[in-house]
């Protein structure tokens, strides 16, 4: 509130983390889930695509709820390497 310029930069950062960032995590998570779910392959891919949307919504909410931008970027920084390893 006190430093509007700083606030703008912070909001842009959060939007980038939430929208492209959230999408990338959702995509990686659904691909990883398609690999590891104990279902027939094609079934797993469909199940993962059904479960992905709440994940995306929660990620976006988190990016704006976190107190700092660093906190907002935590899922991206922590989950992305794990999901990349688990994914195809």
């Amino acid at each position, binding site marked *: 509130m006190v430093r509007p310029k700083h606030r703008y930069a912070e909001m842009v950062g959060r939007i980038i983390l939430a*929208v492209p960032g959230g999408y990338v995590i*959702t*995509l990686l998570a*659904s*691909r990883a889930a*398609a*690999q590891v779910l104990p*279902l*027939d*392959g*094609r*079934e*797993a*891919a*469909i*199940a*993962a*695509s*059904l479960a*992905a*949307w709440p994940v*995306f*919504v929660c990620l*976006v*909410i988190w990016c*704006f*709820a*976190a*107190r700092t931008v660093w906190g907002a970027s935590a899922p991206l920084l922590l989950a992305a390497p794990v999901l990349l390893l688990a994914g*195809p």
Partner: protein
Amino acid sequence: MTAAKLRVSMSWLHSWGGLIAGWIGFAIFLTGTIAVFDDEITRWSSPELSVEGPARKRQIVEAMAALDARSPAYWFAALPSTREPAMRLIWEDEEGKIERAHLDPATGRLFTPRDTGGGAFFTEFHYTLHSGDVGLWIVAAISVAMLVAITSGIIVHRRIFKDFFTFRPRAANRQRSWLDLHNAIGVVCLPFIVMIIYTGLTIKAPTYLPVPEGPRSIDTKTPFAQSPLAAARPQSISALYESAQHVLGKDKVAFVTVSEGGGETRFVASRVVNDRLTLDTDTATFDRVTGALLGTKTVDRPAYQTQRVMAGMHFGHFGGTAVRWLYFVLGLLGSGLIATGLVIFSIKRPSPWRDAISVTAVAGLVLASIAYIASARALPVAIAGRPEVEVGIFLAVLCLSFLHAVCRPVVAAWREQAAFGGVAAAAIVLAWVASGGASTGDRALVAMTAVLALLSIFLIWFAMAFPRLVERTPSRNRAARQAT
């Protein structure tokens, strides 16, 4: 992080995220709501589709046999149903050109209705914004944004249940009244809008979240169960149709496709989808020549079926007219939720450009939809590329609405566009009655015209009441309180 801080950040997200999502979200919701009655709108705009009497089974079979004699390599027939009483036929002529016609299943008369996008335009617009794959992605992004706006809205309004019973239409603060209305609508249609947005996202999920090709990728091909039967003797179309009904159920055949490929001709019957929740099209495939049942498609894999049930819930074909009306009313409430949200934003933070976009996003969409429906029926039948002209009119009205909203003060823009829409809707109703629209005896079309009449009344009321509804200092209330 304290709860109060969370509510501040969620309030910001709800306002700004809701604004951006609402601008396009209203168009998605309104056209999707109208699309609930897509076949009825097509019938309304093309009176010739209202055929004369009940379908006769003999006519249906004879029509298919005639098609088969004419074009044995490829033909398609959509059998008559309550919502599409005329039979739709597609076949290939001698030069391989695709021909189309409709058939009156009572008399066997072939005819070509006027060329119109009809109600299908609204279906297409609500998930692609009439811009193909780009639109598909925009709609998905806006859908997620709407889910985010809903979630943050619930966090902000923690007393959501109590708020539902709070409505202060005469509150001294107009923004308070609009907020009460926004909250009440939100609580009523919350389960529906969450369901409809989520299920909408699942329909095209493989496009949005592609999995690389491989054994664990999403299977978009038709799972097909082979069931080799002893080859029978050469079959008539009538006998094949009987066999198809035997497999899929009596009167449960919706489409028949005959096509050549791989050295054999296949007769594929597809089952209706309007009698159960899942939108899975079961098929029965026969060898056209021998009449042998080559296979059926009925899938019971759980994840696949779950996805098809999600699609079925989104389309709402499962419950007949009652569920259609329920979807229509809840869809209108969802549109109202977005519209009230945009008005609240305008009251809270006025800005000429943002307000003009909000007016176009709501009033412009209503006007464009009215103009589209009118042009689908009233444009001269002989115009070349008639469906494109209809869409052009829709988009032109949207542009005019924006120009008007930019030029006029915001309250005037709202009420003038609403008034214009009200008068236009009334004119359409009168023209429909005067041109004998009610004479076909199709009750759905009368109901649709009645909805247009109600819309006209609502818009004219809105145009008259709007300045009072948004005035910044309702002097009467305040003066009354000060007097006591």
